[in-house]
Structure formats: C-alpha cells, structure tokens
C-alpha cells in the first residue's frame, strides 16, 4: 500500500502552517504521522531502515510510530512524551506538525502544542469510539482558539472498514462539537497502519467520497491575522539605544499608520505615530499590520510602559480589575480561591487572586458541577479573577489575543483562560471620569518630560494610610521637609484644608464625593510635577474605602503607599511599605525616599537627570 511519492516533486514552500495531532492515547497519532511522512517521501534517506534496524536489535515489530520517537526511553514506554515538531513540504506548503500526546498525564503538552497550531487533526479509534480524551481535546482546541479541526476516524481495519461504524462515530462526535459551535472541516475514515486514506485514496472504503488526510491538510486555510479588526498593539518594551525612543511590540489585531493617534490603556495617554522603525528595510514602512513585530516612535515624549495596549480612541479595550473567564488548569497544585497568582495577558503582568469559582465544566459531557474552593489539575472551570491593579483586555470573542491570559503559579505557567465577561468593578464610574478628563486634557507648552528634567524628579504621590494616632501626619511633615531640604519639589496635601475650602459646600459628609474631590486635586498637583505627600486623615476610619478612588483618579502616576499602624494588622491592597508603631520617624522617612528611588521617581542623586521610564 505504500506509495513512495517522489521527493523530487517537492517545491519551494511559499507558506508554513502549524498543525497539531491530538486524540486519546493509543488511537494512532504517532502512527498516522509516521505514515504521512513515509507515504509522501518526506523522511530523510535511511530513516526507515535505521528504525527498522533498532527494532530488530530490540526484538520488536517495526511501528511507524517509532519514526518520531527521538528518545529511546520513549520507545521503551511506548508513549510519545513531548510535543515534537516535524516538518514536511507538500504542494508548496510547509507543514510544521506537532505531535501532541494524549495520555492523561501529558495534557499540558497537548495544550502547549495546540496553543500554537493553526489547525488540528483529531483522531478517534474506530473500535474504541469516542473516549473522554477525544471530547476533552475537542473542547480544549476550541478554547485554545484552534478553529479548523479535521476528525480522523482511525483503525478502520479493525472494524472491517464498515460504513455504519464510521457514521455512528461521526454523528456522535459532530453533535458533541456543535455544543460549542465547532464544525469539523472533514471527518475521514482511515487506517493509519495500512495507509488507507492517508496519502492515497482507500479502495477498501468506496463508500467514502471525501478527501484523504493529505488532501485535508491542503484544504486547511491559512489564517491571516485580522487587519480589519480594531487595532490592538500591546507595548512589549521601550527602547532608547540611540536618539530614537522606540515603542516596540507585536500588533495583535488591526493595523496602524504613520499619523494615527493612539490611546494607551489603562493609562489613557495619547500620542501620534511619527515613524515606524525598521532595520535593513528601505524605505521605512509607513504602515504595519496584525502579526508584525514592530517599533514606532511618537510625536510626544509620553512615558508608557510595557503592558499597556495601544488602540484607536474610538475603540479602546476594556479596563477593569475584575474579569470572568473559562479556564483550564494544568498545575500540580490545584487553583485555589484566595491564593495569589500572577496573571499575564499580552504583555501585562499583574498579581491576581481567584474571587470565585463558579463551576467546573465536565468536558466529557459538558455538564456542570457547582464550583467549590479549588480547580484541580486538568479541569476546566468558569472563574472570576480579581487583579491587584486594573488591566486592559478584550472579550476573547471580540479580540482573541488580548482576550486570553495565562496564570503563573510560582515559577511555571499553570493555566490558561479566555475572557468571557467584563465584571464591572466599583471603580468603573470614576475610571470613566478619569478617561474622559485625560482625553480632553489641555496641556501647556511645558510637557511632563520637560518638567521632570527641570525638577530632577518625576511627579508622584506618597499616600500615608492607617488608623488614628499612628503618626501619619507627623511622618508626612517629616518627609516633606526632608525632600525639600534635598532640593526636591514636594508638597504636603492635607485633607483638612480641602474640607474647609473646596468641600465647604458639602453639608453632610459624603465620603464618596470627598474622595473624588481629593483625588482630582491630587491629580492636578501631580500634573504640576510635584511629589505630593498626603494622608488619609480626612477619611477617618473609612480610609480603606477611599483608597481605590484616589488610585483611580491619580492613575497612572506612581503611588507609594505607606501604611502605619500601632500593631500588626491586615495591610490595604498594594501597600509598598509598612511601619508598625515606628519610633524612629527619620529612619521611616529615609525608607520612603529609598522607595521613591526604587520606583524611579527620584534620580539616584540630586541634580542627576532621571533616566527611568515610567508612566506620566
């Protein structure tokens, strides 16, 4: 049955396509792969003979599956351990085939393989039928964003090439896929072992009129990154190797041109694209589109950082500190409510915790189970995350790449999710106010950059939090004096002064409005280039409620949060420094100054031009 198609017909590939092969363990993935290579003449010369020789030596029957088992350990265990990549060229296309093993223990490899694939072959054993892993893999492919799936019903030889067996499996599996709106590109009956319908049409299954596996590969469409979608350009880094200040990153959706006005989220800063930089490309490009790794320069020296997402003003991403997602978990340690993780979305990285586990999805029948306190290894769940700081993102149905994230537990990526819902947090209203205000902000001739150069430091706010009589005011005064004595431009903003002036019209104390006004005043002072020092005194015991509002309104200025208490107590979120009943206030003030240096607010020495790059 082997037809050795002439390797001589191989032509120069014009495009590449990554394909993943998934399916339940032993349903024949490695065999299919070996067969595909052998029957298209894509193996290096002598490869089959070499593997046959090893088999003889070890006294076992030759298997096509062995062709890609690079590690001898694997042959001993008979399980393909990791996602191997192999290449072959067929009809002017170069396929990168990722063999993802289906053994339960190795789901993370399947996921790693599928996450970078453009299309998938999903194998089902005709004799065994649809198994749990067949379903799980189908479901995960859709979560991972693999849109083209061809189902291969293998080992037809074991069911005497019967059409009714094939039709039964086809029906069952199509119904399963349709529950999450996946329609398979093809469903093909094959025998990988005997090469039926792999590279050549089977004569044993005349009732099947569709394409062979090889044809099906050719039928996969090349997905081109969407240039029609709204622009998303996550900032990967900011370079200043020479006179140019280049914002580098990969466009994930849409396109950008020289002259476009960009808005960066979540900082709300805006600037116009001045140039698109490129190395060894003449003339310089004036446009760039989704998929490209580019660098742009801006007309204004605004400070932006890795993580922000640039877009056009009329179509900005969502911003929140709460989001709901479908998540799969691969970690050894279960995902647990209340535990701290790192969430990475595009180039953003933020501490997060699981606020709620709504339900566990049973991938075998897509049934739901009430969520508890944890999500175990290899489980899929609907989860709400709360991030420590607000992040920019999209729903994955709107913009795929900025709509998905990974969760890092300690050192490793332990899970991935796609965002299904924005959960409005309590800051939504103020965030909107701040955004509108920032977009319309009228600037003078002196930019933030110029002001920072002149002052020798950047603007920031030091926020002293804590209960009554913990020494906040005292420390704030001390810090102001110390900074000014050093030649910095610092100012103590005392809430008491607002209460008697700006807030004099407010009758009964309205804590929300007090916080809003306080935040807006702080924002103005920060815009003057000052290091604003403030305490939460005006909010009394309710200071914890006021903090998020102040943070939202002064965003994206650096906030140095210093908590003071008489004894140990739970710190407000995002606290940078904590002093429990400090005796030595000079020492405490010095530590705050060190923190200001660490955060890049102060240059290391007075008079030295600050070289750091942070927002504002």
């Amino acid at each position, binding site marked *: 049955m082997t037809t050795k198609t002439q390797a001589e017909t191989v*032509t*120069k590939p014009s495009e590449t396509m990554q394909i993943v092969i998934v399916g339940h363990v032993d349903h024949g993935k490695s065999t299919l792969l070996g067969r595909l290579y052998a029957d298209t003449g894509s193996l*290096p010369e002598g490869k089959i003979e070499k593997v046959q020789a090893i088999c003889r030596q070890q006294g076992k029957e030759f298997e096509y599956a062995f062709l890609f088992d690079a*590690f*001898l350990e694997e042959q001993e265990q008979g399980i393909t351990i990791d996602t191997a990549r*192999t290449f072959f060229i067929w009809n002017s296309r170069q396929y990168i085939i990722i063999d993802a093993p289906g053994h339960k223990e190795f789901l993370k490899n399947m996921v790693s393989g599928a996450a970078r694939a453009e299309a998938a072959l999903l194998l089902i054993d005709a004799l065994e039928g649809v198994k749990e892993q067949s379903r799980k893999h189908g479901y995960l492919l859709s979560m991972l964003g693999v849109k083209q799936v061809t189902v291969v019903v293998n080992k037809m030889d074991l069911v005497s090439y019967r059409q009714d067996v094939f039709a039964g499996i086809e029906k069952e599996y199509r119904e399963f896929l349709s529950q999450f709106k996946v329609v398979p590109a093809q469903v093909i009956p094959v025998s990988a072992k005997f090469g039926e319908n792999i590279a050549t049409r089977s004569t044993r299954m005349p009732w099947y009129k569709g394409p062979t596996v090889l044809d099906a590969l050719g039928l996969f469409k090349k997905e081109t990154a969407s240039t029609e979608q709204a622009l998303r350009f996550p900032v990967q880094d900011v370079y200043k190797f020479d006179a140019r200040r280049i914002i*580098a990153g990969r466009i994930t959706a849409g396109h950008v041109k020289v002259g476009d006005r960009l808005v960066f989220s979540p900082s709300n800063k805006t600037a116009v694209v001045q140039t698109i930089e490129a190395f060894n490309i003449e003339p310089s490009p004036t446009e760039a589109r989704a998929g490209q790794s580019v660098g742009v320069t801006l007309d204004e020296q605004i400070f932006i950082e890795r993580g922000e997402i640039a877009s056009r003003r009329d179509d900005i991403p969502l911003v929140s500190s709460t989001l709901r997602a479908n998540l799969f978990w691969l970690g050894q340690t279960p995902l647990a409510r209340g535990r701290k993780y790192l969430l990475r979305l595009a180039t953003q990285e933020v501490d997060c915790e699981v606020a709620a586990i709504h339900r566990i999805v049973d991938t075998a029948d897509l049934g739901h189970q009430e969520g508890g306190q944890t999500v175990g290894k290899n489980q899929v769940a609907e989860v709400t995350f709360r991030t420590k700081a607000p992040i920019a993102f999209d729903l994955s149905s709107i913009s795929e790449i900025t709509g998905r994230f990974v969760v890092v537990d300690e050192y*490793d990526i332990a899970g*991935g999710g796609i965002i299904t819902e924005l959960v409005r947090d309590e800051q939504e209203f103020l965030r909107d106010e701040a955004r509108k205000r920032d977009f319309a902000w009228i600037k003078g001739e002196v930019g933030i950059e110029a002001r920072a150069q002149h002052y020798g430091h950047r603007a920031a706010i030091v926020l002293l939090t804590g209960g009554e009589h913990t020494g906040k005011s005292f420390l704030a005064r001390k810090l102001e004096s110390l900074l000014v004595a050093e030649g910095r431009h610092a100012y103590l903003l005392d809430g008491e002064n607002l209460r008697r002036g700006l807030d004099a019209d407010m009758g009964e104390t309205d804590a929300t409005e007090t916080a809003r006004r306080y935040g807006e005043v702080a924002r103005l002072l920060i815009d003057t280039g000052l290091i604003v020092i403030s305490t939460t005194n005006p909010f009394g015991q309710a200071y914890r409620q006021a903090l998020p509002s102040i943070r939202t309104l002064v965003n994206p200025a650096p906030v140095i949060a210093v908590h003071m208490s008489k004894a140990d107590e739970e710190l407000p979120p995002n606290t940078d420094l904590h002093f429990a009943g400090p005796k030595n206030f000079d020492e405490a003030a010095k530590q705050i100054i060190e923190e200001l240096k660490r955060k890049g607010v102060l240059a290391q020495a007075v008079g030295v031009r600050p070289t750091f790059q942070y927002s504002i």
Partner: protein
Amino acid sequence: MKHLRQLEDQSVYILREAYKNFDNLAMLWSMGKDSTVLLWLARKAFFGHVPFPLLHVDTSYKIPAMIEYRDRLAAEWRLNLVVGQNKEALAAGMNHEKGRVTCCTALKTMGLKNLVAEKGYTGIILGVRADEEGTRAKERYFSPRDKHGDWDFRDQPPELWDQFKTAFPPGTHIRIHPLLDWTEINIWEYIKLENIPFIDLYLDKGTGMRYRSLGCAPCTFPIKSTAKTVDEIIEELRHTNVAERSGRAQDEGRGMELLRKDGYM
C-alpha cells in the same frame, strides 16, 4: 517571502521577550549559518543594536576562517564578544580521539557550563532548530535547565500562546530558542532575502565539495556539492533527503540524545 516575514516576526517577539525578562542574558554565536541568522534577527529586534554579549565557546579546533569571520563581524557590528574555553581540558590534551562524545562534552558542554557559571547568565539564546534532529524537536521556545545545566525533557512546563517561561528558581537558567520553527531552507532563504554575510565554507569553490554544517575541523566533513551560490544551495536542499547533520560525527548512534540531556546546545 511572506512566510519568512512571519518567522521573523515570531523570532523578534521571542528575542524581545528574552531581553525584557532576563537581566543577565547572552547569545551563543558559533559563526554558523543559524546563529548568524539569529544574530541578524537580534539586530532587527533592537534596531541595529545587539544589547547583550555574544558567547563563543571556542574548542580551539574550529576552522581558522571561522575565527577571522567572527572577529571581522564583531568589529563591524560593534558586538560585545565573549570567548570561553575549557582550558583545563585542553591543557590535559582533550581531543576527538578520546571519543567524540567525551570531547564534545568536555570542550563544548563543559565550556558552556563554565562560562554560564562564571558570568552568572540566567538566559542563553541559542539558534537551535526543531528540524535539525529529534531531540531538538522537543524543545520549547523557553526551556529551563536545572542547577547542573541538565534538561528534564520529560517534564517540561507548558508554553501557551505567546506566554513563555520567564520565572525560574535561583541557580537555574533558561535556554531561549527563537529559531525553533525555522528549517534549513528558511535559513538560506532568509540569508538571501536580507543579504546576510556568511562564511564561504558553505559554498563550493571549485572542489565539488562544501560544508553543510560547521563544527570543529576534525569532526565536520564537507559534502559533495556544486552549489556556488545561496540560490544553488536552496535549490539543492529542495531536492535532498539527506539529513543536514550527516556530516557531523557526534550525531551517530545515540550521541546527540546523550549530549543534549546533559546540556549540550
């Protein structure tokens, strides 16, 4: 050409992730076609600059033309070149006659490990391609190495979408592989597209022989070929079914598998 630009975009993204996430980063440069393409991609990613050192683990057995080429480009492209050598092993008379795997382990693997230990690099960028040989096909883009520099290929962390492993315990390091998805043909197509300078040992200069892969002089053999230009190399590769590293003696038997588990490039 479009597929080359796609490969380029992905490699540039990986290089930039590496640069952002690793404070003590270095790139291996063997002056061969792959690591030279990698070096060129770094210049792409960083707009004409190479913001990390280039390491050459010198076995002392390299072909002299390679060293000339190295020093010329280093000067021209203003590279920060760091040359490492396992001097002890050389002083003790290490050479391929003591056994190829033994020699490679001593001069290359140990040479690299010593250099990494001495300089404290936490990220090493290498021009490894998945299509070179089996074990390399199993690599991740960001692949952890333990305290001894060993690779646990059985239990590799997941790699999802464009999120890579950038956190690691102290004492370990990460190998970064931006060229994983490139094939040998892609490398030559790209050399042509970008007009990248390469060593002419890869071309037949009238002897009917050329090198397809460059290593140490005693263990690398030229192949029969009349390819005198990059175009002819591409044309030749399009029709060959002979493995690229067939001129490399270390790949024989289980050589590569043993070498790579212990941290060989």
